[in-house]
């Protein structure tokens, strides 16, 4: 505390909450002040006042610093024009072409073939056709030698000459293949439009026609759904392995060469489910839906077959099959079994 000439000295005031000095100190302080008032006209400072004042000033300094910092925090919010600093480095604002179409086109650049196939897929991924594919003699159209491949025909067609091999070939040992959305026809009168030895394959919304067999699956497990198999030489759909669901497909005019062992759908593996397929007009010498001897535990329900009577269905007692409903005199279905198959 600075004492100016003529200033009336008084005992330091302590703020509420600050503990007062001891009475002894207070008495000493009063004596000192009295002495100062009577003898001293210069700047004097009480000894106890020095400590109190220093403490007070330190506290005030601390509050000042804190206030400054708080003001520093508050300043950005008070800047009227907003923050002039860029939020960060410029980021991408447009999609690249490969982001717009992230799938991989099937072509000579991205999926080059070899002596056995026009196009070869060797890495997992999502692939799509960008044009029709025309087959080459003694080669397949597309071969898949990788796991986890989706191939979207994108509405295009794959047309093979009779001297070609397979439309699409999935090699043995690979798993998780999806083939969908297109047209495949005429790859080879003794081979297949789609031939798979892979496991867990899904084939959906594909039209296959004009080959020896439309779709042949020999691996373990898969789904064939919403496909149309027509005018294939021997089989529309052939299952050579277990664990398939064949659902909601249409087969017409298959077994075109009219073999006695031909069929629209032939099952040569156990534990498959054949449901809600529409079969008509297969070669009359063969079958509509047939299961080979020795095959067990396939479920065959809710299918309708026309044109092969009395061989619309061929199965044995080792399967689980819905009852056959045939045309009756009245034409009215009286069998209320929901799993029935229809033959007419």
């Amino acid at each position, binding site marked *: 505390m600075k004492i100016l000439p003529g200033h009336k000295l008084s005992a330091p005031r302590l703020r509420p909450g600050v503990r007062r000095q001891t009475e002894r100190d207070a008495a000493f302080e009063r004596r000192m002040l009295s002495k100062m008032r009577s003898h001293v006209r210069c700047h004097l400072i009480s000894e106890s006042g020095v400590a109190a004042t220093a403490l007070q000033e330190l506290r005030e300094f601390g509050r000042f610093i804190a206030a400054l910092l708080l003001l520093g925090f508050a300043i950005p919010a008070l800047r009227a024009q907003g923050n002039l600093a860029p939020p960060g480095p410029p980021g991408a604002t447009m999609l690249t072409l490969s982001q717009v179409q992230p799938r991989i086109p099937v072509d000579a650049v991205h999926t080059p073939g070899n002596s056995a196939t026009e196009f070869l897929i060797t890495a997992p991924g999502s692939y799509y056709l960008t044009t029709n594919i025309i087959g080459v003699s003694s080669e397949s159209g597309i071969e898949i030698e990788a796991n986890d491949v989706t191939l979207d025909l994108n*509405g295009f067609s794959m047309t093979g000459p009779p001297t070609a091999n397979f439309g699409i070939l999935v090699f043995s040992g690979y798993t998780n293949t999806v083939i969908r959305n297109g047209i495949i026809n005429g790859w080879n009168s003794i081979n297949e439009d789609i031939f798979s030895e892979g496991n867990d394959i899904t084939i959906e919304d594909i039209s296959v026609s004009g080959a020896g067999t439309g779709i042949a699956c020999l691996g373990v497990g898969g789904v064939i759904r919403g496909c149309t198999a*027509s005018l294939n030489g021997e089989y529309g759909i052939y299952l050579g392995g277990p664990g398939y669901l064949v659902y909601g497909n249409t087969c017409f005019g298959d077994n075109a060469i009219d073999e006695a062992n031909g069929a629209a759908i032939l099952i040569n593996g156990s534990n498959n489910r054949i449901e809600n397929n529409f079969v008509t007009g297969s070669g009359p010498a063969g079958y509509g839906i047939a299961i080979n001897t020795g095959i067990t535990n396939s479920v065959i329900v809710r299918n309708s077959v026309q044109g092969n009577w009395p061989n619309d269905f061929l199965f044995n007692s080792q399967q689980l099959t819905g009852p056959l409903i045939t045309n009756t005199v009245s034409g009215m279905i009286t069998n209320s079994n929901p799993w029935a198959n229809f033959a007419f």
Partner: protein
Amino acid sequence: MKIAISILISLAGLAFQIQSVDAQGSLTPPAAPGPAMLTLSQVEPRTPVDAIHTPGNGTVEFAITNSGSYFLTTNLFGVSGKGGVGIYTNDVTLDLNGYSLLGASVGSAGVTVFSGTTNIIVRNGLISGWTGLGVNCLAYNGILQNLSITGNGGSGVLLQNLCQVKNCTSSGNQDNGIQINANGCLISGNLCNQNNQGNIIDDAGIWVGAANTRIENNHLTGNTSYGIYIDVDLGLTNNMIVGNSVQGDGANDYFYSTAQIVGPIMTNNATGIITNSNPWANFQF
């Protein structure tokens, strides 16, 4: 001590604040530029239906004469005396892409798939207001799916050999909703409402002039004359009719002969509760 702590905390706060006002960000490029190797035709490889890519002729406004995958890029409007899109070749997929083919009461047919073609798919759009048929599908193995075909001057759909109509709506057409002229067709999961606006005798929501069809799980209401009609005068056999529901034609909801295979017809009864458990039943009400 308290003062020192207070100062330290304040200084730390100040340090954070200083860090947050690094204005320019990192000047290091994130990575080397990646390849952008797709062409636009790889991004959308299908062929648009327009005057450049599918120029028309004297019969149709747009003609598809090469196999491939086609799509609409906008609504298309009919012109007088011509059909909308004509498909003249095999192995064609036509995706309406959610757009409409609008006849504007002057165009003849919305889509014509000409005779002799095979493996044709038309899907995903609307076909409306043509003076003739909505879709005239004369193909072998034609597939129509997810189409809405309304208010046309003829039938909504006319089919020839071994065709399929799945998950479509055919409504308000002057003639039949779906007309089947040849064997082995599959008609599944469609809605046919208010067809036969022209009140033509013996026309129907679904009219069958063929054998060996499967007509399943369709819903029909308010079609004039008949709901599902099998032309028995043609001696047709083995049409399978199951799981359909027809309303609005009373005794004429279904018309067929005993040469077909038909689920029992369930009608509304006193309680309104379905008591027949036959899963192949058809409904009328």
